[in-house]
């Protein structure tokens, strides 16, 4: 990364100790904006002398998080949110990929439904909440429906475009090797569309996570959205900010530990869409 700035350093391989240090430095670089944000937050709080019900200090939020964690409350809220997004992702893949395949393998269907899918993306999951609450009440089902709806559209859309982007002669070549229709799907279209499906999953997880928090705030059946919205009614600023920090952190963790390894496995190794 920044190692290559000095030409001499680039020409000579760095000693391994230095290289490790450089990598650690780039790790610190990621943290710099966060540290700056906390610094600004702390400075505003100190300068303004705000009362506790308007703004609390970073240290106070940290203490609250530690207390909540030690009582097991945090684990409860986190596990609700995580299992919701997990279940939604599995169901969305199980339904969305076959639908995307069906649409993608038919030129007319793909052309006809593209505008419709875009339209659905416009009517966000949150906009469905009033209707879905009327149908399913304030339940986990309602939350799941909203999150699946949000997650599944990018998965369908990207599966469809992925299938359509597979070069025609891949399939023709395989047909002349005697491949059946099923073979074409398992050996050509599914692996060919996989990088695009993973992109759809990543986008969907991003949208879905946001929709999940929003749905939890209204449905109030546990989860991090419930945590921060509940804290609002009792004016617990420390819980609200702590919950927000967790929401962002968990999103990064899900993305880093789940989606990115998947992406590296398919995209980088096959050289299909090299970064």
């Amino acid at each position, binding site marked *: 990364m920044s190692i290559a700035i000095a030409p001499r350093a680039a020409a000579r391989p760095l000693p391994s100790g230095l290289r490790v240090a450089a990598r650690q430095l780039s790790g610190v670089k990621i943290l710099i904006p966060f540290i700056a944000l906390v610094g600004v937050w702390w400075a505003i709080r100190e300068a303004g002398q705000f009362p506790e019900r308007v703004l609390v200090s970073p240290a106070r939020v940290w203490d609250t998080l530690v207390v909540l964690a030690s009582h097991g409350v945090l684990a409860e809220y986190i596990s609700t949110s995580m299992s919701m997004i997990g279940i939604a992702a599995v169901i969305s893949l199980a339904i969305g990929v076959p639908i995307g395949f069906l649409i993608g393998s038919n030129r007319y269907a793909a052309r006809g439904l593209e505008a419709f899918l875009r339209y659905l993306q416009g009517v966000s999951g949150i906009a469905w909440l009033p209707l879905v609450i009327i149908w399913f009440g304030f339940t986990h089902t309602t939350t799941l429906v909203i999150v699946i709806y949000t997650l599944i559209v990018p998965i369908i859309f990207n599966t469809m475009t992925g299938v359509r982007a597979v070069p025609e*002669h891949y399939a023709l070549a395989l047909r002349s090797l005697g491949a059946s229709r099923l073979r074409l799907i398992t050996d050509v279209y599914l692996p060919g569309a996989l990088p695009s499906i993973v992109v759809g999953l990543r986008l969907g997880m991003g949208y879905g996570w946001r929709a999940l928090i929003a749905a939890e705030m209204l449905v109030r059946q546990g989860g991090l959205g419930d945590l921060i919205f509940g804290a609002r009614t009792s004016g617990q600023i420390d819980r609200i900010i702590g919950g927000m920090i967790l929401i962002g952190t968990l999103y990064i963790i899900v993305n880093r530990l789940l989606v990115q390894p998947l992406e590296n496995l398919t995209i980088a190794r096959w050289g299909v869409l090299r970064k």
Partner: protein
Amino acid sequence: MMAVQNSAEKIVVSGFRHFFDTEDGPVQATGEINLKIAAGEFVTLAGPSGCGKTTLLKAMAGFLRPTEGAIHCDGKLVTQPGRERGVVFQELAILPWRTVRRNIGHGLEIAGMPKAERDEKVARLIELIGLGGFEDRYPHELSGGMRQRVAVARTWAADPDVILMDEPFAAVDAMTRLTLQEELARLCAATRKTVFFITHSVDEAVFLGDRVLVMTRRPGTIKATIEVPRRSPGGRDWESFTTDPAMQSIAEQVLRMVRAERGAADADEKREAAVAAPP
């Protein structure tokens, strides 16, 4: 019509004509084509671009149904792709998510050959095409020439009777192309496949073919057939080809015919342009 079928005739194209449906109505892709290819024969087809060469090959492969006429392979009407007719494309058609070994063995895998037997056969082919040591590489880690070798090997591994090749070496650099052509000539001499090979290179057509067909400009028909005397398989290299006066005179003859069609095609275009936009 095809009542009497000579058993030595592998492929018979009779009364073939093809039209493509476009928004402006049907467009004629080829004129009437009649063609017989004997078993074990290497036939090359040269012609100006856009003359319908690829359309003919696609119909032989079974990828499209001819508008008129019929194509028979071993006396059976061709209606869809089949394992007995392998195809090597100009575009790279090996799968980027499969290693060299798994790409070459793909046809055998589809045919249900047990893994041990398959690996053995693939290993022999990999040696033959000089890709030893690259078995577990992915296509994006190979050079263009190596990739096209894998594509050719995949088709050969499936052991079809007929191999249809659509400018397979067009996208490779010139030096590599010479090597690939020599390798193909050797491979064909060793395996006695029936090959139908499309090219727009006159030298390639004469170098590889037992018989060279020259196609007219669009809508293409077969303008001439030139027999190329048999050479010994060992003598099939570019050095002896370029120094053989007999070969050179054939190449010159083919070149003159192809150029005449090219020139006529250009003249057609100019005339059409003049009609479309009068001065």
